[in-house]
């Protein structure tokens, strides 16, 4: 793994005459889909299905009143987290995202039980029940949250990348944010510094077409989000976020670029959220036909299922996978329901680390 150059050998991106902002996109165009082995493909399928079933169950538990407050589901966007994170080096690379975070955690191998128990606000939850759906973290897995303030994770991701560079550990940071978040000022402040300092970070815009009830065209002067790094000389990539193999291929290209010490990449994954923004949503800003059309024609899980069947897997094989996943999710839900609430004394712990 190439060591990232340190800040002390500055090569301003502007000084590099060969720098082509579209070079990574061209590489992707040349070969769009990742050649997955049979096992890998099955893994992608299982992981995406796990996220979907988990989220469906979370939606149900919310309806039953077991989950409160905000709960943002990832249904429809599964290929993004799975395609990207399957290409990361676990225990080395860091991941950070916003409040729509359950999928990214599952894709990073975090136990569904402790995630679900956090959603129900129980002692066994990954944040001891003190964070909730939007605020989950696992330093063990180098998953750094779980942030409720739109856009904050982008600058924080820049900091995680700075730490990788500083420690010369060869790791990179994957920082996810939404199309809505892409309009926050701190995103561009971070782009500038990340490019200037050649930080090892991949900025991933999950363009699911809406920020709450606002379609991208109503909030953004430039809706081709991958171009938004241009002013900072960050190469952009536009990726079909409904195709896990394309996402994975893009990840290979982007991560290589970053690991070679060539600075950040901005990747826009075009995707779609099937459910409301949070659990209740007036759903007046888009038509049912629009949602139905994506579900029927672009579903990331169905697409992989099709390939698996073409490869000779039977419907029964796939049903068995689904059954296994349902069991895992049911166990997580039971665990989350039956785990006790945090001890009242937990109210005062973790405010500060030290005693004064």
């Amino acid at each position: 793994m190439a060591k990232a150059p340190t800040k002390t050998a500055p090569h301003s991106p502007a000084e590099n005459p060969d720098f082509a902002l579209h070079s990574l996109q061209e590489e992707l165009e040349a070969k769009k889909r990742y050649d997955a082995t049979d096992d890998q493909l099955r893994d992608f399928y299982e992981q995406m299905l796990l996220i979907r079933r988990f989220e469906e169950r979370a939606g149900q538990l919310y309806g039953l009143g077991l989950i409160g407050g905000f709960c943002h589901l990832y249904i429809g966007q599964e290929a993004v987290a799975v395609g990207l994170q399957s290409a990361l080096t676990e225990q080395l690379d860091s991941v950070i995202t916003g409040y729509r975070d359950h999928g990214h955690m599952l894709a990073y191998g975090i136990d569904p039980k402790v995630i679900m128990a956090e959603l129900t606000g129980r002692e066994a939850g990954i944040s001891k029940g003190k964070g909730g759906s939007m605020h989950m973290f696992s330093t063990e897995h180098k998953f750094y949250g779980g942030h409720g303030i739109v856009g904050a994770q982008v600058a924080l991701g820049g900091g995680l990348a700075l730490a990788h560079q500083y420690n010369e550990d060869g790791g990179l940071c994957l920082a996810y944010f939404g199309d809505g978040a892409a309009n926050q000022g701190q995103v561009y402040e971070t782009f500038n510094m990340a490019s200037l300092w050649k930080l090892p970070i991949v900025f991933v815009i999950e363009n699911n077409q809406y920020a709450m009830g606002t379609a991208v065209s109503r909030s953004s002067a430039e809706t081709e989000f991958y171009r938004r790094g241009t002013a900072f000389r960050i190469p952009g990539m536009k990726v079909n976020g409904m195709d896990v193999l394309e996402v994975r291929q893009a990840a290979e290209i982007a991560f290589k670029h970053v690991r070679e010490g060539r600075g950040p990449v901005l990747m826009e994954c075009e995707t779609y959220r099937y459910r409301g923004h949070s659990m209740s949503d007036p759903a007046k800003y888009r038509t049912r036909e629009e949602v139905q059309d994506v579900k029927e024609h672009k579903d990331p899980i169905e697409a992989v299922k099709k390939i698996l069947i073409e490869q000779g897997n039977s419907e029964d094989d796939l049903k068995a996978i689904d059954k296994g996943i349902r069991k895992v999710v049911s166990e997580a839900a039971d665990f989350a329901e039956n785990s006790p609430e945090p001890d009242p004394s937990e109210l005062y712990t973790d405010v500060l680390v030290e005693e004064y």
Partner: protein
Amino acid sequence: MAIELKMPALSPTMEEGTLAKWLKQEGDTIEIGDIIAEIETDKATMEFEAVDEGTLGKILVAEGTENVAVGTVIAMLAGEGEDVSEAAAAAPVDDVPGEGKDVGRPEGSGEGSEAEIAKPAKKWGVKDPEIPHGTNMATVTVREALRDGMAEEMRRDERVFVMGEEVAQYQGAYKVTQGLLDEFGPKRVIDTPITEYGFAGIGTGAAMGGLRPIVEFMTFNFAMQAIDHIINSAAKTNYMSGGQMRCPVVFRGPNAAASRVGAQHSQNYGPWYASVPGLIVIAPYDASDAKGLMKAAIRCEDPVVFLENELVYGRSFELPELDDHVLPIGKARIVREGADVTIVAYSIAVGLALEAAEQLADEGIDAEVIDLRTLRPLDKETVLESLKKTNRMVIAEEGWPTCSIASEIVAICMEDGFDHLDAPVTRVCDEDVPLPYAANLEKLALIDTPRIVKAVKKVCYRD
């Protein structure tokens, strides 16, 4: 084994809704993920998605049925080869009044506040002296009162406009700007991108340029992105320009804890803004104050931070039917007269203080309750007058205790009311921790009526 399909909840506090539409019919095959029906409250629509597969059996609640209680069996789903067409009809549902809960997230903590949301608040006997005797009263929610206040001022003054996230087409994340786009059009009701720092600056600049912007923050938690403009740009320009440059902007939105939304979405910024010279800070409790002070804020020549409370939006109160209901900024109101002790509160804590006062009355303690309404400038006079009368004071505040409005009141009492004190002035606030998500911890963290009652008894030496 047939599966019962039950009326789902859009939020933990939703009790009933309308079964708007069946998208599948009896006998249809159901795949997981299929949308079976559409559920509605008056604020939101939800798609009811299948989590099991099978065949839709008997539909037990017809399309268009209103007030279907959460948990009611609405249809049966049969597995392979089963017949559920004979399933029993659902028990009839009582026609319970009350609104479907809010969009965006649940409203009301489920306990305590709920009762008050459903029914108009009690009259506490003390009229606002600003309201002429004999005025007709209408019952409206705080949400409507705020909206009406803005709409009236927009009709009156062309320079007034509203901007913020989801304020126009979506009708407001919490529906406070409902209907404004229809009436005033996109020039005056502007949807912004999610860029608080930017649009707070644009709003402030527009005020400097002669307009009267109302800048909505989806919640005040997000105004932290923009606090530089509120304080450095809006609050200080008049002073720095020697009085030349006015900045008549209103920054408004829900403030303080909502329900189960965790630490980053739950804090009270009252004390933060109230510490800044050059700002007006208003935090009303009931509908009349919400409307009257909103109108005053919009007319005010100074920058105003107007702190609302999501949990109070849906509560109904009496509102005077006046052509132009404008209330004075900087005046507290005695909302309940009493002789033994004073409870000072603002925003949602006023409701808790009134509840506490009722309970204390049963135990023979006659509490006076003051609603501060404006946090800056603070109405010291009303507070000190009351202290002079009761000689004992408790401050109830939904917020952290350290450097709070409560602390400020204690300081005022020490400096200017010392001779009237018969007991230490006591703060009742939230616990001094970030707000936890877990239901039990959240409840422990937040101020409640029993804590106020306890503190009052203590200052009355009755514990």
